């Protein structure tokens, strides 16, 4: 054990807030739907969306969970420009554990999204094979310009000590 430092433990509760500099826009919705291969007309056809009870096209639910689009900044040496806590764990391997999403309200083209990330937990344990693991759980809460809750994204990152 020892992957969970006092320094990291003290960061539980830390937040990072990103507000998009502009509204979502129809193009971003259409682009995402096309990229994932989802031809649901709710995302591109306002009439179909009206029929389903929406006032306009909506974004695919998982669209909101991609935080990079709300950020500004520069790409790192691996080309990545996204939210990161900058947690460094020497002599370890990082893997993504998974995601849990909740969706409360639809995203419309005129919405301006704010993502509020929080470190909600950091724990360590030893696997049955005797490997030390550090598990950091973060949660993003997404809201629109009216303060309405769009959804949440809980993500786990797992560092495994290299022997």
């Amino acid at each position: 054990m020892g992957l969970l430092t006092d320094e990291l433990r003290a960061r539980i509760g830390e937040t990072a807030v990103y507000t998009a500099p502009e509204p979502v826009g129809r193009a971003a919705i259409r682009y995402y739907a096309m990229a994932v291969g989802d031809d649901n007309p709710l995302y591109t056809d306002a009439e179909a969306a009206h029929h389903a009870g929406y006032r306009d096209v909506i974004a695919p639910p998982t669209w909101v969970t991609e935080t990079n689009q709300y950020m500004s900044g520069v790409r790192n040496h691996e080309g990545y420009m996204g939210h990161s806590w900058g947690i460094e764990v020497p002599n370890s391997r990082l893997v993504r554990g998974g995601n849990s999403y909740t969706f409360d309200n639809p995203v419309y083209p005129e919405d301006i999204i704010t993502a509020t990330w929080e470190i909600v937990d950091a724990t360590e344990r030893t696997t049955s094979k005797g490997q030390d693991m550090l598990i950091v759980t973060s949660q993003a809460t997404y809201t629109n310009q009216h303060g309405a809750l769009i959804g949440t994204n809980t993500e786990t990152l797992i560092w495994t000590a290299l022997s």
Partner: protein
Amino acid sequence: MTPPVSQVDVSTLEVGTSVPPLRRTITQTDMVAYAGATWDWHQLHYDANYLAAKQLPAAVVDGQVFGALLVEQAQDWIGPAAWVQAVDFRFKNLVFAGETVECTATVREVITTDEGTMIVLDCEVGVVGDKARVAAAPCSVTVLVR
């Protein structure tokens, strides 16, 4: 306006009822499109030199796309009356450019609420073909049918 009607008769759903599977080949081109759409330019998703240096056989599919596929599967099944309330997935194995994944799902629970019928699905994302393996499991999707 007439509210949408579910394409599925929710009154006939039972625990264990199967949802039509969703199968998708994720090409390198699809991955470039996804990287662009999500503002994620990490070299892991496209750069041959980066991948060779990391001893990876091909570009790695962004796992969050599985969430999008699980939503698509549930919505295509129920239709526009579906509102996906929750999606949960745990990664088991990396998926590489050019591989085909299949989302499978069965009904775990049907709950009648004031808002409508809530359907909880047990799902799995698997890689099909020569190197068949689990990509994400356990997974679940919760859909409200109003």
